């Protein structure tokens, strides 16, 4: 009986095999592929609603609009970080992105072995994360404080126009520098629009960015202090806070990517556009690979489009007027007339 079962299974498999042959893949090749770019994501997966997903979205844009030949190397365990980077460099990709600051260490080791390949580390700080200072790596950093300032300014305007106490708050997962920067900009932005306003800033102390219960607890605490708008700067953890804001009929503000899909209670989102950073960096590479500068931190900000704010809730009163005012501030930041504080 066993052999019968096995034989049946084997037959099915070979049947499948021959079907597979019929639909054998024709090698997809764009007309004139000149450049090759690869993205190495970090542990977390391609559907993480965050960093990895955004970097991969950027890669797809690069493939479509810039005509690069691209490939994503999905890293599943920490043991794969370095081999994936190495494999991409070996496979002839001229521009290789590593996403997340944990890529700093593998970049530090792999990059010197492939001097002809250009590497870019998203959220990798060239000055602190790469001890051997490889000359062919570019750090990519973001001015999160500018995004914080923009959504803070909008929150301030909303506080002023709606009844109730002028109190806004923000919840950070923990004290990573990016969150500290968001906070600094946010507080200054709220105060700029509404000098009387109180800003409550709290940390959920969640090292994982994923514990929704922790952010929810902090949100409840802030709600008891009469906050009207909650800016969740905490990845997956923040979803718990936004959920709580929604339940209480308060405004929520999303972070990193456009989170308006969570519902009309979302005022807007502070954007840190990783996809755009990947796109702009590749564009720069395409212009002149020989002159593609490395060995420094490329900073993305409002001015070059890597930072901004997302779609604004359709439920907001005086929506057009508020957007106009925020855009005016955005121009001032881009022009360097307003410099949001980094903490």
């Amino acid at each position, binding site marked *: *009986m*066993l*052999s019968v*079962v*096995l034989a049946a*299974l*084997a037959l*099915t*498999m070979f049947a*499948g*095999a021959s*079907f*597979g*042959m019929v*639909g054998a*893949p024709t*090698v*997809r090749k764009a007309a004139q592929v000149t450049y090759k770019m690869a993205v190495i994501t*970090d*542990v*977390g*997966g*391609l*559907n993480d609603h965050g960093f990895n997903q955004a970097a991969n979205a950027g890669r797809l844009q690069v493939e479509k609009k810039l005509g690069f030949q691209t*490939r*994503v*190397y*999905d*890293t*599943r*365990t*920490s*043991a*794969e970080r*370095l*081999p*994936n980077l*190495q*494999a*991409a460099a*070996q496979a002839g990709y001229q521009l290789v992105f590593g996403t997340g*600051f*944990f890529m*700093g*260490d593998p970049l530090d*080791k*792999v990059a010197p*072995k492939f001097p002809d390949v250009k590497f870019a580390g998203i959220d990798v700080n060239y*000055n*602190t*994360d790469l*001890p051997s200072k490889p000359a062919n790596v570019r750090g990519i950093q973001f001015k999160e404080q500018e995004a914080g300032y923009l959504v803070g300014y909008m929150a301030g305007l909303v506080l002023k126009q709606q009844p109730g106490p002028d109190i806004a708050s923000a919840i950070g997962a*923990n*004290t*990573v*520098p990016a969150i500290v920067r968001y906070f600094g900009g946010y507080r200054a932005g709220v105060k700029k629009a509404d000098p009387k306003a109180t800003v409550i800033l709290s940390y959920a102390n969640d*090292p*994982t960015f994923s514990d929704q219960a922790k952010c929810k607890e902090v949100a409840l605490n802030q709600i008891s202090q009469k906050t009207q708008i909650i800016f969740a700067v905490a990845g997956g953890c923040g979803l718990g806070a936004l959920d709580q804001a929604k339940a209480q009929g308060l405004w929520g503000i999303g972070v990193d990517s456009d989170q308006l899909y969570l519902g009309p209670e979302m005022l807007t989102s502070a954007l840190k556009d990783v996809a755009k950073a990947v796109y702009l960096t590749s564009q720069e590479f395409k212009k002149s690979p020989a002159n593609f500068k490395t060995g420094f931190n490329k900073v993305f900000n409002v001015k070059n489009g890597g930072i901004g704010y997302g779609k604004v809730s359709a439920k907001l009163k005086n929506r057009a007027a508020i957007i106009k005012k925020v855009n005016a501030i955005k121009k001032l930041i881009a022009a360097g007339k307003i410099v949001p504080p980094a903490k």
Partner: protein
Amino acid sequence: MYQRAGGIVTPLITALFAFVVGGLVVVATTGKNPLSTYRAIFDGTGLNWLFPWVSGVARHDAALNLQQTLLVMAPLMLTGLAVAFAFRCGLFNIGGQGQYTVGTVVAVQTGIWFASMPKPAHILIAIVLATLAGAVWAGIAGVLRATVGAHEVITTIMLNWIALWVASYLVGFGGPLQDKRFGAVNPNTPDIVASAKLPVFWGDPQLQGLHIGFFIALAALVVFWIVLSRTTLGYEVRAVGFNAEAARYSGINVPRSYFLAMAISGAFAGLAGAIDLLGWEFHLDLTVVQSSQIGFFGIAVALLGRNSAVGVFFASLVFAALLNGTSARALDPSIFDPQLAGNLTRIIQGLVVLFVGADLLVVYLWQARRKLGLVGRDGLEPGKEPAAS
């Protein structure tokens, strides 16, 4: 005769079943030939390096892949042993992951301290301390089982979480082990000093080459076999595993065996953490602490390896090969979606565990052959399960 055959045949059939069903999954999801997918996975493992006709660039790539496969295999062997040893005493050690984590934490701290020590002494002290830490961590569960009878499944799972969160705190933001030098702010520890790093014997030491931890793991297999098969302690452990009541009646100190079996189990897992950390990780970061699955893979390794040293060797090779062979760099994304590639490992792993759990079914089918008249009656003892060997 039958028992011997069943001992080898059952895991083979189990693995074969898992691969066949995995192949069906490949057909169902991609519509592509599963054999060519398996071929790509096989090449990704680097095992084609063993074929003398592979040469040139292919051979170079195969060597790199094989280094990574063996690099993953070494800790899998050890966490597999950690589960297997406890199993032989009738205990189910699910705490391999926690014991592994404790081992990595102790190894990283020891690797940072004692910076002035000569290399062999530094490595030795780091390995010994990490191994002891793993033993202590599992020993807690052993003591609880031996004294108050708290079930080790519950306690080891709880200890996993304690290890996970304590380690997260230690290496995380603001934690005492976090690297705060040079303005670094990431949730990871500094690197261990050069004298604590295990020598690399194959590949580039800078690029995660294969370190001597592989031989340490092989040595552990031998130790496992000797302790279980050639010592009084091993005899007692196995006796307790077969029947605790009978063992007690014959004068064996059962609580002592429980404790020692757990402690030795934990030592294997702690050693796994030590060789990973001293061999290629060199520092501990938050994602490693939170996302490492090596200890849990050890359960599948022990199950497929039927708790024997030789079995664990081959089972860890199978799982390491699967893990490495299905990595995104081994499979062409235009043919095989990288997300699917990663999940194929999990599917096959799940199927292996499922089929091993259902080994009675396999035994039943094995015996059913006789009823179908496919084999003669000779040598078959009906109703007897194959013993772990």
